[in-house]
């Protein structure tokens, strides 16, 4: 207890110093850090300095060493070599609790909440100084105050179970803020946030940095990085490649540093000629979730679903895929009216849904790549005794490995061993193998690195060119704008507008998504 008090006091002191002169004393210094896991050199001689009040972006493909560095800062891993200095004094960080005491907190891409505890408890769970007795009333009040500061309306009494990812992320941020940290690590905090929420978050991040908190910001969204960062550091293959002030860094040179080669920025997908009408949805609804959704999807068309998280876009996908069947409306596929009550029926009709949540809903992590790929189509791989033809299975997996360039030593490895981007490709393979005519992609590039993202985008273009009708659900506005032929915008379970490609831009989409005087142009497809 006393230890943490002193830590807080020290924290306050350093903040004051920081206000006097920014670049004076680094709040955190990592010197010549090296870390090896078995055969992999995860980090090699990395030195990184964080100053009070700076927003320091960390870029790099998955596996470049960013996560390892973060885990060393938060005490999850110990470095093999090198030293860590906090306010000029060398420290050892043995575990997460210790790193918190030292004033370092981290927010991860996958929120680590306690689903059975309520929001307020989740915010204050790591507070050692709130005493042994829980003062519920005061805890709820404090939690509400912190959330209000964040501009988030959230019932602090409800359990975290069932909160949307964005809401969970808000709780994580509130948690970090409540700790009065000196160094805040944000590992892809925006991955599951919509544009508006990102703006909110950034305002908050700037507030924090004004108060002297050093922020280490990891993101794969280039435009965000250049929106907020003071400094940009790029990692590649366990090494620190470059650290540039914002004024010198450009998206182009950062990407070059990341991939080690020249690479283009996000380019609009060339429009493909639209084919026949494939899917026609009218008045689709599910009680209490979404209502009156109508749209058409043609062969070779990419129909984007935009809007805020929790607007009901995923729920439409789930209804079409039969996980949570719709309770109202009609679905006409290839000219025939169909009812979809289960995923099996939906798959039989040629619909595939690639879930937003790879870990929980998409893949069976301990199972092999090939087993995951053939899972929905297992019937095709059985011999006449009902046994699995493993050679055939492997051949399919190898074909996809080639086609989608899945980077792995073998298709027999468990998918848990793959990076996020490669896992996403396994997901895609799994569903492409069902040879769908309608492919629903839910946040297909969330949390994957730039290179993999570009590959997924190319893939989407190719699939559309092959005549598949694609529904692309994405909170990444630039992505959905560049990839879609038309864009359907949802707000709170209602369809706000369908934009044609030329009418869709950041403002028009956001206006519709926010529900402020729905754009007149575009209009709802009849």
């Amino acid at each position: 207890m006393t230890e943490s008090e002193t830590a807080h006091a020290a924290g306050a002191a350093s903040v004051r110093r920081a206000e006097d002169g920014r670049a004076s004393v680094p709040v955190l210094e990592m010197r010549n850090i090296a870390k090896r896991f078995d055969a992999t050199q995860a980090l090699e001689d990395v030195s990184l300095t964080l100053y009070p009040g700076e927003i320091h972006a960390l870029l790099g493909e998955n596996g470049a060493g960013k996560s390892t560095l973060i885990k060393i800062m938060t005490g999850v891993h110990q470095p093999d070599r090198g030293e860590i200095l906090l306010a000029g004094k060398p420290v050892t960080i043995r575990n997460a609790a210790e790193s918190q005491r030292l004033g370092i907190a981290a927010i991860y891409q996958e929120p680590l909440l306690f689903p059975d505890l309520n929001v307020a408890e989740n915010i204050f769970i790591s507070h050692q100084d709130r005493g042994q007795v829980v003062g519920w009333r005061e805890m709820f009040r404090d939690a509400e105050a912190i959330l209000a500061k964040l501009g988030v309306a959230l019932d602090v009494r409800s359990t975290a179970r069932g909160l949307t990812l964005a809401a969970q992320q808000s709780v994580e941020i509130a948690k970090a803020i409540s700790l009065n940290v000196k160094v805040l690590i944000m590992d892809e905090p925006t991955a599951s946030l919509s544009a508006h929420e990102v703006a909110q978050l950034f305002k908050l991040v700037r507030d924090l940095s004004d108060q002297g908190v050093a922020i280490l910001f990891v993101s794969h969204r280039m435009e965000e990085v250049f929106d907020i960062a003071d400094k940009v550091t790029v990692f590649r293959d366990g090494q620190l490649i470059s650290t540039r002030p914002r004024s010198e860094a450009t998206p182009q040179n950062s990407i070059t540093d990341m991939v080690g080669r020249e690479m283009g920025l996000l380019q609009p997908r060339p429009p493909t000629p639209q084919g026949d009408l494939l899917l026609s949805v009218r008045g689709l609804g599910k009680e209490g979730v979404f209502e009156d959704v109508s749209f058409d999807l043609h062969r070779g068309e990419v129909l984007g679903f935009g809007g805020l998280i929790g607007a009901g876009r995923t729920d439409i996908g789930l209804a079409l895929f039969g996980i949570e069947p719709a309770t109202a409306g009609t679905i006409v596929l290839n000219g025939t009216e169909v009812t979809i009550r289960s995923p099996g029926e939906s798959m039989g009709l040629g619909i595939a849904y690639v879930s937003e949540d790879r870990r929980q809903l998409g893949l069976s992590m301990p199972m092999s790549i090939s087993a995951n790929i053939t899972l929905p189509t297992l019937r095709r791989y059985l011999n006449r005794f009902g046994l699995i033809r493993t050679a055939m299975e492997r051949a399919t997996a190898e074909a996809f490995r080639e086609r989608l360039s899945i980077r792995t030593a073998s298709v027999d490895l468990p998918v848990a061993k793959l990076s996020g981007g490669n896992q996403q490709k396994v997901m895609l393979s799994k569903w492409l193998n069902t040879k769908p005519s309608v492919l629903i992609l839910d946040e297909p590039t969330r949390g994957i690195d730039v290179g993999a993202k570009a590959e997924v985008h190319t893939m989407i273009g190719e699939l559309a060119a092959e005549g598949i009708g694609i529904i692309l659900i994405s909170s990444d506005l630039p992505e959905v704008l560049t990839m879609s032929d038309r864009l359907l915008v949802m707000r709170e379970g209602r369809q706000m507008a369908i934009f044609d490609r030329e009418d869709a831009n950041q403002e028009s989409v956001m206006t519709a998504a926010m529900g402020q005087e729905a754009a007149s142009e575009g209009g709802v497809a009849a």
Partner: protein
Amino acid sequence: MNWLQRYVRPEQVRELSLLLLIIVAVIVFGSMIDNYYTSRTFNRIASSVAIITIVAVGQTLVVLTRNIDLSVGSIVGCTAYFTGTLLAQNNDLHPLLVVLAAVALGSVLGAINGVFVAWGRVPSIIVTLGTLAIYRGLLVDLSGAKTVTTDSLPSWLVDLPRVNLFAIGEFDFRAMFMLALMIVIIFQVGTSFLALGRRLYAIGSNPDAAKLIGLPIKRLVFLTFVLSGALSGLAGFVTLARFGNITVEAGRGLELEVVAAVVVGGVNIFGGSGTIMGAMLGAIMIGILEQSLFRLQISEFWRDALLGLLILLAVASDAVILQRLRSLWARADLKFIAKPPDDGPAPERRAPP
């Protein structure tokens, strides 16, 4: 209603649905059995659930952290027997000391479980399945098949089950029932108002996150096993007082009854949710079913079949009621929504279609 929904969450009224079921059961049985609504029925059920309830409290703590303790029956047997033997040899031991001895022995046995689970990293079901056999085996070997007999015990102990703390009309509130009730209240308060208690929920709810934020998982899991052992020890003492004669068979099979009470009481067997109160209601539910079936004019041979069916129906209807409650809440729940800039209060959730 809105105000109520704001302050009372479906997870907290989990017990409400069980209470509802208990009332239904009492009404149904009351219409089938003569003289059912008497103090006698109350007294029977109250005293028959005392032992199960005490053990179920400890079990709940363990289950909350995503573990299970199957050795409780053997711990109850060991403590009942060895405390009995100790008391038979020293009849003038102070009662408090006797209780302490039982609790201490239970704690030690629980601590052994805890060490294996927390630091040995052996899954709790394996550890306690093992110690279930080992503790019983030790008891049989060490006892040399002797029996603790009632006449060797001091009279204060033998008469303990008869001691009434107070009575409201004909409703007796006996010492043992009150002891169980007290334990329930203490631990219910502890798990809702102590940081320590809330951390047990945290561990069971998301062990990875618990580890990441640096909760002392091992120590807490160890603690729950010690507490489970201690409470089983206390239950062993109650068993000794209640039955007087203690053979090495005492408490055998108790683990299944306790797990049944905990499960019927709505404690999630995979950790993280459920309450001490719920476990007690689960024990009471099963107690009511058993006691009432004894009294029904049905063949002795039909009892188990009916009991099994009723437990199943209790669990099922409980799940259905709970789901109803949840959806009721969800409908009126504040939906999470990012607050639009300078737009006053969060927008109301749209009206249902």
